[in-house]
């Protein structure tokens, strides 16, 4: 498939000497120019998908433009996935935004771009290598000298973006480039003019009239830009999805996922890249009569969330790596007292403060083993933005059914990534929270040795008159502290057994491809997309490979061993260090559970999500 696309591009390759001639000279009020009908005078194939990379400085509004374009794509019935970098300092710096838009499902934001939009010479030079051969470079001729910097075959369009805007808006038009580009790209992609206008106006709704006027002017200038020669050939094929999609980032998906799962309470402490989960919940929960607390630190956040859960309202605490480390003692208490709880960890580059604005999947083993003592807890991971939403319901159900803390792992990549996906089915996805205040009969036992624990939150009368005291001490079935040898064995077994039940209830993980063969790639969390795409690519090229994706990391389904045994080569694909034993964190876990020694890892720690080609290359070299 890929190859075919490359061929299509090659048809349009122009000679190096033809470059740069497409920039219009001079400038004028473009706003009056009659609408240009792109479909009319073009004889180009429509693309199934297009990847666009925007590169500039953070003050150019690259990110807001990118997110608007993504939303536009979603509204237009396309699928979309984005990728962005956050500058490490508050004060700004280089900023990029990449979008992959298509009419079939999109698994990654794309290894390489079909279109590179570069606003400055340094953006151009830094990103040109990510442009596909024969791709389109759009750059601001005021700041960019593409000559000698782009490979042969690139379609270069050096446009006087700054100048055009200055003439359209008057004066030094620092802002507005993003709207100009939004309009231009929207038209080129074949998206609907009205929709893009609506979208921009919605976004700036609350601004002054003068700002809105400028937005509209810049947008129009982009939309109605008159191409003097051949225009860039990046028209999308017809959309195939319903326009009932939402276009959402991973952190918002978690926040709304929690709300739809019935979570109304929680507590967190700000930390990149998890903060916006708490920000959304602080803003939203009052509507649902809920409360979300900003606490003084992560220990307090975990303690407060456990207090809320103890009160009978399943609660959440969200954080990233350093905060996870601080929550380990509280999480151990929740395991011991068997308290339902949801913990969201948006993983970032580690260890320690690490690289707060980059992605990594390196908190898995801590999530599983991070507290002292035998303190098991459930660990799930979301594979994409849509699953950031849907996994919350499962997490909440498990937390309540098994009376256990459940960790949801997301990561920095997912947190800022935007994806379009269909709106959920409200009739099935909304869980109404219910506070249990029913009296407990006289034979109520807080910790039955042979049944799942279901707490009686305060407010419940206990007919026996013996009220339970929830504790981190080893306790017996009555909840009373009991350090006795037999009791500790019994209660350890009780806490273990529910994980056994859960393991049994966990379905076999999703597989793509044969369940035996030469090569099995295993992904978890956000390494799903690139792994799936890599396997699809191999398949398309006639190479045999299978893909297993693990969503429940702990307890890990031990029967996967049978599948593993049927493959000659087994690799986990994960964003962490394969360490001295050649096993990334998932591989470490799989080996310890299954004892399958052939599991190795395709692992890296460069702070970037996997590119499909990196996986292909690793597989080829292995």
């Amino acid at each position, binding site marked *: 498939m890929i190859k075919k696309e490359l061929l299509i591009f090659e048809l349009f390759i122009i000679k190096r000497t033809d470059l740069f001639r497409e920039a219009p000279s001079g400038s004028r009020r473009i706003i009056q120019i009659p609408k240009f009908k792109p479909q009319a005078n073009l004889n180009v194939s429509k693309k199934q998908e297009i990847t666009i990379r925007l590169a500039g400085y953070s003050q150019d509004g690259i990110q807001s433009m990118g997110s608007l374009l993504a939303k536009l794509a979603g509204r237009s019935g396309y699928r979309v996935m984005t990728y962005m970098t956050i500058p490490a300092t508050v004060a700004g710096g280089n900023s990029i935004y990449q979008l992959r838009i298509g009419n079939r499902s999109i698994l990654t934001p794309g290894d390489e771009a079909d279109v590179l939009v570069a606003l400055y010479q340094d953006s151009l030079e830094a990103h040109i290598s990510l442009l596909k051969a024969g791709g389109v470079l759009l750059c601001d001729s005021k700041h960019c000298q593409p000559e000698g910097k782009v490979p042969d075959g690139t379609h270069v369009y050096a446009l006087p973006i700054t100048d055009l805007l200055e003439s359209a808006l008057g004066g030094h038009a620092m802002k507005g480039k993003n709207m100009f580009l939004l309009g231009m790209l929207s038209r080129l992609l074949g998206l609907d003019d009205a929709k893009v206008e609506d979208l921009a106006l919605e976004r700036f709704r609350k601004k002054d009239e003068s700002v809105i006027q400028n937005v509209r002017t810049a947008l129009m200038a982009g939309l109605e830009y008159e191409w003097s020669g051949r225009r860039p050939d990046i028209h999308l094929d017809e959309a195939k999805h319903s326009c*009932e999609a939402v276009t959402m980032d991973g952190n918002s998906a978690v926040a709304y996922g929690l709300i739809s799962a019935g979570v109304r309470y929680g507590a967190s402490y700000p930390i990149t890249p998890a903060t916006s989960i708490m920000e959304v919940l602080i803003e939203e929960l009052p509507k649902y*009569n809920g409360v979300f607390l900003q606490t003084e630190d992560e220990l*307090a956040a975990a303690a407060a969330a456990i207090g809320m859960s103890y009160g009978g309202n399943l609660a959440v605490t969200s954080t990233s790596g350093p905060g996870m480390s601080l929550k380990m003692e509280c999480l151990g*208490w929740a395991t011991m007292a068997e308290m339902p709880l949801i913990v969201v960890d948006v993983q970032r580059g580690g260890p320690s403060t690490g690289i707060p604005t980059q992605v990594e999947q390196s908190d898995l083993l801590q999530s599983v083993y991070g507290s002292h003592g035998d303190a098991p807890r459930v660990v799930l991971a979301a594979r994409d933005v849509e699953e950031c939403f849907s996994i919350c319901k499962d997490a909440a159900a498990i937390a309540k059914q098994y009376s256990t803390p459940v960790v949801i792992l997301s990561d920095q990549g997912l947190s800022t990534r935007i994806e379009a996906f269909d709106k959920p089915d409200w009739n099935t996805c909304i869980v109404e929270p219910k506070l249990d205040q029913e009296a407990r009969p006289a034979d109520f036992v807080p910790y039955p040795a042979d049944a799942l624990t279901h707490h009686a939150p305060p407010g419940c009368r206990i007919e026996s008159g013996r009220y339970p005291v929830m504790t981190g001490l080893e306790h017996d079935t009555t909840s009373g502290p009991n350090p006795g040898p037999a009791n500790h064995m019994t209660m350890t077994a009780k806490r273990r057994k529910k994980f056994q039940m859960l393991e049994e209830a966990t379905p076999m993980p999703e597989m793509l491809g044969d369940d035996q063969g030469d090569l099995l790639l295993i992904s978890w969390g956000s390494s799903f997309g690139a792994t799936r795409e890599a396997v699809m690519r191999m398949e398309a090229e006639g190479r045999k490979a299978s893909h297993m994706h693990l969503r429940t990391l702990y307890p890990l389904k031990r029967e996967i061993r049978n599948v593993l045994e049927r493959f000659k080569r087994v690799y986990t694909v994960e964003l962490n260090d394969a360490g001295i034993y050649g096993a990334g964190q998932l591989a470490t876990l799989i080996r310890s559970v299954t004892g399958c020694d052939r599991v190795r890892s395709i692992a890296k720690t460069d702070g970037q999500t996997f590119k499909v080609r990196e996986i292909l290359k690793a597989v080829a070299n292995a």
Partner: protein
Amino acid sequence: MSEILSIEPEIQLPEKITKKLLAAKQPTWCPGCGDHSILAAYFKLLEKLQLPREKIVTLSGIGCSSRFPYFVNTHGVHFLHGRILPFATGLSLSRPDLHLFVFSGDGDCFSIGGNHLDHTARKNPNMTYLIMDNTVYGMTKKQTSPTSPKGFVSKTDPLGSIDEPINPMKRLISTGATFVARTSSTNIAHVMQMLERAQAHKGFSVIECLSECTQFNKGSFEGLNPRKGGEYRIIEEKRFDGTPEDENRHDVTDEVAAYRLADEPWPGRFGVFIQKDRPTRSEASAGISERVRSRNPGKTDRDFLVEAFESFA
């Protein structure tokens, strides 16, 4: 009993709360430990208040003192060392219908848990917090605590402690807590009185209660025992009656005056140092919910969620 009387009444009368009903396990504290008296005062308080029993929650951190909930037959929590305040804050804000009584030791409160004092006070959640201060680590057998007097000989200060002790009243007043009081387990009636006022107070009410550790700090509080030549000076509060005597009485809303009282040399005074009015965090949160919901009359949870998704469409 006649057959008729043995029929279950249709409407259950509220259970009468008695000490007998409340007494759970036999306390495992050492004989003579001050904590016994505090438990007695708590029982008396609950007997007097007659709150719905199932709505009472007795909570604690970790330490000898923090064994408290095991000895009380109400819903209870024995949480982690130093972390009971944020736990209780979460509980209080999500369940404003409950009555929270939190107990912990001087180590639990002022050492590992110190930071949560300020931040709990800032939020002013509705709960009563009693600190059982024996100026030593009892549970771990005689290490210096933040309230141990200078020179205190312990296993971690074999030549006498050298760090400046925390002044609990100064520490608590500076948090901005809306109710701060001081009492001693040697005076059960006063403990009971302080507990009663604390419970009646809307918001975060803190009491420091001296409580002798007979095992590791015997005789530490003789200075306030009139029978041992000490003095138990009770704070006289302003009555605002315009009398000249009233001039010298303490205004519980005057933070600087309270700080001055706290600055007096040990054993200082007992009673209410601070009592002031401020909305609880539950009230504030409810206010926000009302504001938001009144802008959207009649909307259900589902409507809000669907609407939120629309904004992403």
